[in-house]
């Protein structure tokens, strides 16, 4: 790895840390500057002022803002996200640890489907450029990309779950089966869990597949004009081999970096799908926390989503610098 690339990576790392610091500061301020009393939902109307102050003290809300901020930052470093307001004495981390795996399963499976379909679809459309397949495919993809996910979700629910009764409509498994899962492994080994994942995965994939498909298609069209592709053809390789081994391999690089970014954004963007399908994940917890004014939990959930997005951006940057030598070189030029 050249010195330029190393300097670039270190620079990007420091930038990422700065971005995170800005995000946590904004989160801290946003929740405290919001109108209303942060513990209004938890104060019983019969509480005396003393009881209310007691509650404020319990959550550290009685201290001056700057002190709260310092405590908050120190705690974040220790990965202590505080105590939730609304879940009996449970820590924010505890709740998020339960939710995050469900969100990750959903995100990864839908990305897998979306990118699988997207890449193959992109290749096919590039190969069949100008055909009816390409024209219909492109229109369909643009439509799915524009359709709101909650609407697609509701449509799929109505038909597949309620009309035709082919698939379950909510949750990660019926309670009667679900309560026997003691570990994550039990859950992953259960066909019931995967069956419950089909509709939310598909809904998310319908939305996500547009980007890789269109990206792959345009990259392929660019690559197909390159001399080495013409050379491969002249060398007598079959069209299939030219498409897959020569063109697609080269056209894939931007799609791979888009995938790393997609992981980050999808985790944050699952909110709607998780509510529609009552999927117990990070997004739904975030919505509940905001609705119930559970500030520590909302802050924690936002923070976790932000961390994932920043990390994925950082990984995408590294991938770029490793895969595309120009990135490292330009960074080196800037340094020198």
């Amino acid at each position: 790895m050249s010195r330029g690339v190393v300097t670039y990576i270190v620079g990007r790392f420091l930038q990422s840390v700065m971005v995170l610091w800005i995000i946590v500061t904004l989160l801290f301020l946003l929740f405290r500057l919001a109108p209303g009393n942060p513990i209004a939902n938890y104060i019983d109307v019969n509480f005396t002022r003393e009881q209310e102050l007691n509650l404020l003290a319990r959550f550290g809300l009685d201290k001056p803002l700057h002190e709260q901020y310092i405590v908050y930052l120190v705690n974040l470093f220790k990965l202590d996200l505080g105590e939730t307001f609304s879940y009996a004495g449970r820590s924010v981390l505890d709740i998020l640890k339960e939710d995050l795996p469900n969100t990750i399963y959903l995100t990864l499976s839908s990305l897998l489907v979306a990118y699988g379909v997207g890449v193959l679809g992109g290749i096919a459309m590039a190969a069949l450029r100008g055909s009816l397949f390409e024209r219909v495919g492109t229109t369909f993809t643009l439509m799915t990309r524009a359709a709101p996910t909650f609407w697609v979700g509701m449509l799929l629910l109505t038909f597949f779950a309620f009309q035709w009764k082919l698939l379950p409509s909510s949750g990660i498994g019926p309670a009667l089966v679900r309560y026997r899962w003691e570990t994550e492994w039990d859950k992953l080994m259960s066909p019931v869990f995967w069956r419950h994942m089909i509709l939310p995965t598909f809904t998310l994939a319908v939305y996500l597949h547009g980007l890789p498909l269109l990206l792959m298609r345009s990259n392929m069209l660019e690559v197909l004009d390159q001399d080495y592709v013409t050379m491969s053809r002249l060398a007598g390789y079959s069209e299939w081999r030219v498409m897959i081994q020569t063109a697609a391999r080269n056209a894939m690089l931007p799609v791979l970096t888009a995938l790393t970014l997609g992981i980050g954004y999808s985790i944050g963007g699952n909110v709607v799908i998780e509510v529609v399908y009552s999927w117990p994940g990070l997004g739904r917890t975030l919505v509940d926390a905001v609705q119930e004014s559970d500030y520590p939990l909302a802050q924690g959930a936002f923070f976790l989503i932000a961390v994932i997005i920043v990390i994925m951006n950082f990984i995408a940057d590294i991938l770029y610098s490793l895969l595309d030598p120009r990135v490292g070189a330009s960074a080196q030029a800037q340094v020198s």
Partner: protein
Amino acid sequence: MSKRLIRLSLMITLLLLMLPAAAQDMGELVPTITVHSVTQAERPIEYETTRLVVENMRELGLDVEHRAISLLQFFDETWYSRVEGEGRVEQPFQMTAWRMVGRPERSEPDEFTYNLFHSSVRDGGYNFIGYNNPDYDALAESQRVETDIETRREIICEAQHVIRNDMVNAYFVHPLTPQLVNTEVFNADSVVTEAGIGVQNFWNWINIEPVGDERNIITATTSNLNVLNPLEIAGDSPSRVTEIVWDRLMRINPDGFPEPWAAESVVWEDDTHVLLTLREGMTWHDGLPVTSADAAYSFEAALAGKMKTNDDGNEFFRAEAQDYYPFARNVMDIEIIDDLSLRLTLETPSGAFETSTLSKLNLIPKHIWEPIMNDLIADDGADVDSIQEEIPIGSGPFKFVAYDVNEFALLASHTDHWAAPKADGWLMNVLPNLEAMLGQIQSGEMNLLWEWPSDPAVLKEIADNNEHLTLFTETSIGFQYFAFNLRYAPFDDVTFRQAVAHVIPQQFIIDNLYSGIAAPADSFVSAALQYWRQCDAPLRSYDFSIDGARELLASAGYSWDDDGRLLYP
């Protein structure tokens, strides 16, 4: 000039000096009135009702501003801003849309009779409107200690008349709770609705009878089951679980009256001594017997707490179970007589004790809760609301199988219970998506829908289109109303309040905003609580009439300026 003449001329001068001041006061313009409500997005019907009433108030020559704000801000500007200079915002509220929700414990009229209007709870309690009437206070206090039910009913009737005549709150509806039951899964005749509550009541859960292969009650809620703890009231949905997992000494029956339950007999030895005898053979869900020591401990746990010091150095008592402490506060002494009997000594006689204490307090197993409470008392910061048992143990007709805060609560029939449920199990899923809830009740995935925070007409339509679904509607114990801040003008004037009551188009609101699914309200005692509404004379009515309101104001000396703006008398 004689002294008398000097005195007379001084008096005349003084009178002349006072005249212009009096003339300024009389006929002063009624200032702008702010009417609060929650935003349209949060509570559409309440918002629209307020908008309508504000328009009508303008017809009286008033300058009225409708301030619709988010729920969190709303409480700050109303509940927490009662008195000038002491609230969270500068100005105390003047008039606000408000609601009291129906809960089983509110079927006992004491809660509303006393807490909404007694002057002692003006500063921090439910009487946020600041009603201060010594005659009413006397009524509220006497109904509390009156143990003869007929006499008590008469007192409560009188209290309702006083509140209605004084137009303390302008009630407009008791919502009707629309609910659906799958009557292909359950025998329709076995469905029990509780007065003022609906199908989500204890008696229904134990009596509803499955007729086919599906032997479980499957229902849903939109809110998370944040904590399931017998010493904490965590909200409507968790309460549905706690009331069937933990038994109580008495239960409120479907007609709204307390009857012996885990206590086989409740004998009043005199006004302050009650002898309770438990049923024989009751067991906790872990198999141990339920004894009088457990019952006694249930009171002790509710009364447990520690002394704390506030910022000013004053000591105060802090109960561990903040929610249940008020229910047990009147119990001065507990005496265990034998394995099944105990005697309670009350500090003061209480006509509501059976409903507001014996029917509310959950029986908890001493062997489980004593160590927990001892740890809590030793720990300065923690409260009982931070406790969540992994598998909670009660002695109720259903026992815990499993639960997850944002997914479900799964219970099974406690077959050893003397009143074991007819269904095998009880499942409440957490479904934040209302459309999914509608889909599930129609497809059969769910067989009882009790919580519907949206347009009631939708459920009516679904019931009409699905033969297997039956709609149940019950008048709520709760009510919706406009609350006035009685501390300040113009709402300190009873005639002014009565005039405002006349501009609330009650029937129009019911027909158009509630699609007919609401009952007209005229009192804090719901029509659902029939016994407490059997009064000799009907309550005063305030028919919708803007002209009538103007006449009322004019008769009290109010007038209008040339621009039609209302002037004080």
